[in-house]
């Protein structure tokens, strides 16, 4: 389940560009993600990684090019429509609903799994409370999967940073994605938390979910990704399995200027 060979592309960026004012944040970027892959998106600060995320998930519109998910053109679609297509992202900061409990967060993430009619709600019809019970059961399952079930009654904002990132992932999983975009998921985690998280990612991949992640922690990215895409100054400068990226001279230069030590030494 880890190679891209033979599996079809599910997310495709074709010649995508976007500018802010006079600044080209992303210039003519094209790459694909294949079904069931874990792809790491790396690059120095300002390379355009978060911009790419925002473009893919509909928070930004490209000035040129197009983005296709499972053959659907994402042009002009609103973020919640893209999420409904199965593309769900996490956020690096403010990744949870801080004033609600962990359990309420999970329930909120399950929004798309429910169907509530206004009149059912107002009249408190039995099928409404049955639906709520069903959602609650699903919420417990997700919390168990990420290991937060013991914290269900705590406010999400009071969780330690590492657990908040987990909550963010739980939220995203609740939305039943077919592809998950993780925005710096392990920033702020200690090594043992990071190791546990890498196992979680593999477990998510085992469920058939494609993953694209942006990260600065090189060991983590190289350790978990099937393929890596490198951005610099808004352009793709390299693409391939982790081993080849680590030896790619241009990548090394991008990160370290001209002083040339290997990228694997981070």
């Amino acid at each position, binding site marked *: 389940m880890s190679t891209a060979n033979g599996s079809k592309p599910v997310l495709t960026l074709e010649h995508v560009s976007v500018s802010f004012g006079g600044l080209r944040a992303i210039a003519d970027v094209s790459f694909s993600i294949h079904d069931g892959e874990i792809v790491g998106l790396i690059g120095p600060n300002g390379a355009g990684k978060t911009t790419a995320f925002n473009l893919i998930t509909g928070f930004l519109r490209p000035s040129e090019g197009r983005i296709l998910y499972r053959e659907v053109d994402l042009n002009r679609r609103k973020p919640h429509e893209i999420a409904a297509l199965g593309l769900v992202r996490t*956020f690096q900061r403010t990744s949870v609903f801080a004033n609600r409990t962990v359990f*309420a967060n999970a*329930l909120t993430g399950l929004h*798309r799994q429910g169907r*509530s009619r206004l009149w059912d709600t107002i009249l408190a019809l039995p099928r409404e409370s049955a639906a*709520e*019970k069903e959602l*609650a059961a699903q919420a417990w399952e997700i919390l168990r999967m990420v290991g937060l079930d013991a914290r269900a009654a705590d406010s999400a904002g009071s969780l330690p940073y590492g657990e908040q990132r987990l909550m963010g992932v739980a939220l995203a999983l609740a*939305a039943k994605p077919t592809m998950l975009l993780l925005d710096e998921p392990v920033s702020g985690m200690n090594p043992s938390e990071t190791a546990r998280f890498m196992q979680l990612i593999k477990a998510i991949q085992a469920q058939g979910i494609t993953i694209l992640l942006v990260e600065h922690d090189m060991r983590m990215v190289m350790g978990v990704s099937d393929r890596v895409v490198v951005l610099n100054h808004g352009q793709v400068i390299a693409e391939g399995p982790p081993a080849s990226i680590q030896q790619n001279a241009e990548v090394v230069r991008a990160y370290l200027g001209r002083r040339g030590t290997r990228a694997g030494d981070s």
Partner: protein
Amino acid sequence: MRRIAPAFWLILFLSIPLWLRDPYFLHVLIVTGIFIIAAMSLNLLLGYTGQLSLGHVAFFGIGAYASSLTTIGFDIDVLGLVRIVHKPWPALAGLIVATALAGMCGYLIGTLSFKIRGAYFIIVTLSFAEVTRLVALNWVELTQGPMAINNIPPFTVGLPGLGYIALWNKAYYYYLVLLVAIAAYVLIARLVGSRIGRAMVALKENEPLALSVGIDVTRYLVLGAVVSAALAGAAGSLYAHYIKVIDPDIFQFMYTVTMIIMVITGGKGTLSGPIVGGLIFGFLPVAVRSFASPEAQWIIYGLLMIMIIFVLPQGIVPALSQWMESRSSASRTSAWAAAAGPAVSRTGSEREHGERQ
């Protein structure tokens, strides 16, 4: 204790006309009740979807005018081209029309609020209310302008064998207002505790995050605005048929401020906040009027509002419940644990000691 509290209040409020004979106090209660309904509707918009609209009185006033005109009838010439004649309808129809029309305006404001945010939205809603006031003032043919709409008929209730009873009696009107208030409370409570309510709060707390899990923010914003406006319109209708005279002064910003004060001091985002705030600011004039002129009263309200913002920024109800929680050492079983999953019961001290299941 939690279970019997609402029942206790309900019985108390139901019994009031039986022992409170002073018509003045009943009058204050009725008007306060009407404003509490309006405050609850504002709370839905402000406290749960997080949209601060300063034009809320527009829905109230539109409801009042709609109900009055529906029950009195009108005959107008539109632009010299079309003549519209409306025959009087019963007051209940007026209530329905008021609710529906206000709801439609809420729909407009809701869709608007999605494009225009924050400070801009505040100002647009303010302008909307002002324009409505000026229309009511100037479209004399329809609204009588400053001469006011008079002799608004009362609600009538038909009972088999007894014929029609016109609700002139304060006690009957009190029960009518109480009925609508309870209905509004239940409606809001159910909405807020449901999946729809979760979506609304999510969009208030963290909109990008809500979008990213597939919540259609516009839809829930608009829904909140429609329900909120409709309830305010209903309150306006009740007001019109009680006061029996409606003029453009009903659109004064002062009424919006009153509702906002009620919601904020009571506690925005809580179900009972508007009720507590409403009761306080409904009866404060009674307590204060014997020694303070109207201007002085308003100065007191202003000072009170500022004090509450500084001292109890969340409002009275949250402060009270936090206080009660910190004193209570009994175990609390939250509703979510009872609803599904393994029985989880955590006491306050368990949490403090970091014990986990």
